[in-house]
């Protein structure tokens, strides 16, 4: 099966967008994620944790996310995040995999600037998605095409 990504082809803003729909119990909703081959892990952003009301207090702590010069964002592990993706022929695939989620309660104790920056960061699909779901990633800027394909 092939799952199309949406390519932002603007110079200096190139991005691979991927639509996922959360089916985690009581936290249903849409997530516009970014495929990030620089991230080993899939991380549900502060914005999406907040919007989907994903409870984080009972979860195990995980390593913090660190970026260049922006401090670190506290994270927890959600071992059984459930979500849906849609293939380009209209079939729904149900996925359950562990993801990191931004720890909103810990974030709220941090400085206003840190909180504002954390909310700007989108959910990222990391390399763990390709590994655990047996997917390969194809990106073709010339033909404005990108997709995941089940191996």
């Amino acid at each position: 099966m092939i799952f199309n990504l949406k390519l932002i082809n603007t110079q200096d803003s190139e991005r691979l967008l991927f639509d996922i729909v959360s089916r985690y119990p009581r936290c249903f909703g849409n997530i516009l994620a970014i495929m990030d081959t620089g991230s080993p892990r899939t991380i549900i952003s502060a914005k999406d944790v907040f919007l989907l009301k994903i409870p984080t207090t009972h979860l195990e702590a995980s390593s913090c996310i660190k970026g260049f010069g922006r401090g670190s964002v506290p994270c927890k592990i959600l071992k059984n995040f459930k979500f849906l993706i849609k293939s380009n022929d209209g079939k729904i695939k149900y996925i359950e995999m562990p993801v990191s989620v931004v720890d909103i309660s810990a974030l709220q104790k941090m400085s206003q600037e840190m909180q504002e920056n954390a909310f700007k960061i989108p959910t990222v699909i990391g390399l763990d998605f390709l590994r655990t779901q047996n997917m390969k990633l194809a990106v073709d800027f010339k033909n404005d095409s990108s997709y995941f394909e089940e191996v």
Partner: protein
Amino acid sequence: MTEQEILKEFRIFETGSSFIAKNFEILQEKFGGKFVAVKENNVLASANLFQEVLKQVNSINVDQTEVIIQFIPAEGEIILY
């Protein structure tokens, strides 16, 4: 929720995400450095802060789960995640 309902939800969501991808340059010119709230082919709200844009979405009685809220980087700003 039936598969048909899920597909319908996906279609609404995909219209919004396609709108963002296809119009990213225009969105960047108009809303660079801000959060936007998009539903299907419309920008419903924009603000400098996430909480502000969320307040605007709630004030127009739109279900926040049907809206895509996304930060649009300013022109010339390269963001690494």
